[in-house]
């Protein structure tokens, strides 16, 4: 969903070739998952079809290259997307929650499950802490984002662990 908008944003900065766009996308947003060349060109094709970018051929010795530029329509789309807050999803029915309730319903070890989940989260927190220590600021900020979400889960795990007895009574009574 964000790939076309990210490419549009990069083009708003300056007109660019597909190869350079892919390089910039990977550097800023790739995080170990580089964008395939095929996806770059198919996305640019769709954006051109929809009038959000234009592609100007540049003949030369090598294969025919296109230099892409954003259109006013594309610029408008970037502005609208940037101004629109991301949905604050309540995550009311998480996998974590479902597993805990089911474990209690089935008389299984819900506390053990929460401990295992806490350990998995902490392991990931430790990996992300290492990423923050060694990496550039962009990596550190992404790691921070992930860590704040993991922290929220960990706090939920703590609170649930403290209320497991009451939750078990409620689940088994209903």
């Amino acid at each position, binding site marked *: 969903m964000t790939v076309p908008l990210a490419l549009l944003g990069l083009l708003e900065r300056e007109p660019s070739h597909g190869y350079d766009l892919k390089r910039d996308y990977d550097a800023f947003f790739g995080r170990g998952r580089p964008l395939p060349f095929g996806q770059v060109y198919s996305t640019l094709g769709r954006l051109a079809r929809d009038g959000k970018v234009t592609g100007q051929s540049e003949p030369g010795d090598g294969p025919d290259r296109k230099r892409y530029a954003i259109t006013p329509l594309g610029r408008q789309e970037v502005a609208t997307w940037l101004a629109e807050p991301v949905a604050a999803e309540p995550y009311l029915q998480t996998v974590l929650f479902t597993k805990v309730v089911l474990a209690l319903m089935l008389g299984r*070890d819900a*506390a*053990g499950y929460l*401990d*295992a989940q*806490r*350990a998995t*989260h*902490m392991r990931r*927190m*430790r990996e*992300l*802490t290492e990423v923050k*220590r060694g990496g550039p600021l962009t990596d550190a900020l992404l790691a921070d984002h992930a*860590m704040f979400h*993991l*922290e929220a889960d*960990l706090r939920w795990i*703590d609170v649930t*662990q*403290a209320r497991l007895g009451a939750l078990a009574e409620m689940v088994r009574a209903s």
Partner: protein
Amino acid sequence: MIIEAREVSRSYGSTPALREANLSVAAGEVVAIMGPSGSGKSTLLHCLAGIFTPDSGEVWFDGRRLDTLDDGRRSELRRTAFGFVFQFGQLVPELTAADNVMLPLLLGRTRRKHAERRAAEWLERLELADLGGRRTGELSGGQAQRVAIARALVTRPRVVFADEPTGALDTLTGEHVMDLLVGLAREEGATVIVVTHDARVAACADREVVVRDGRVFDPYTSGALR
């Protein structure tokens, strides 16, 4: 193991805080003690550090019983082998940062000139070289905690005990303080035992244990430590 709690119990009046708690920490390890408020994690830290004596059970440091030492010997051990970083109140606000760092050295009868030099070195390592002459009451929270770390490490302790060392700091300042504490302790080969409810702080440690209802659990096996 550099430090161990074996079946340690401790109560406040009729309220049990620790119930046969076990914890073994290897030399050079950084261990986080986590758990909800009132779970007994700070009591465990105080027992390990010889500040409290357990009602039953044993505490061992470097191959010898710590809990059976008399007050004077325990106090000397705390001054020479242990360093402490707490959330609040460990610095003397009327003294300068340098004086605060020198304090444990002077108490240990280090000559003043030598103590001054060591304090200056440590303040520099904590990125506080320019603030040595400032009263600690005038420092920001993060600066004060860095002075506390310098004071904890200046005696080259074998074990540093930290109780919620970033509890009063914002995320970025807390992160910086933890990086310095853990990084410098590792450079010095010191063991660190840190009590925290903050997962970010715990993530700086090599491993964490969880205290619940006065017992210590290994979250990776979900079993109480033996």
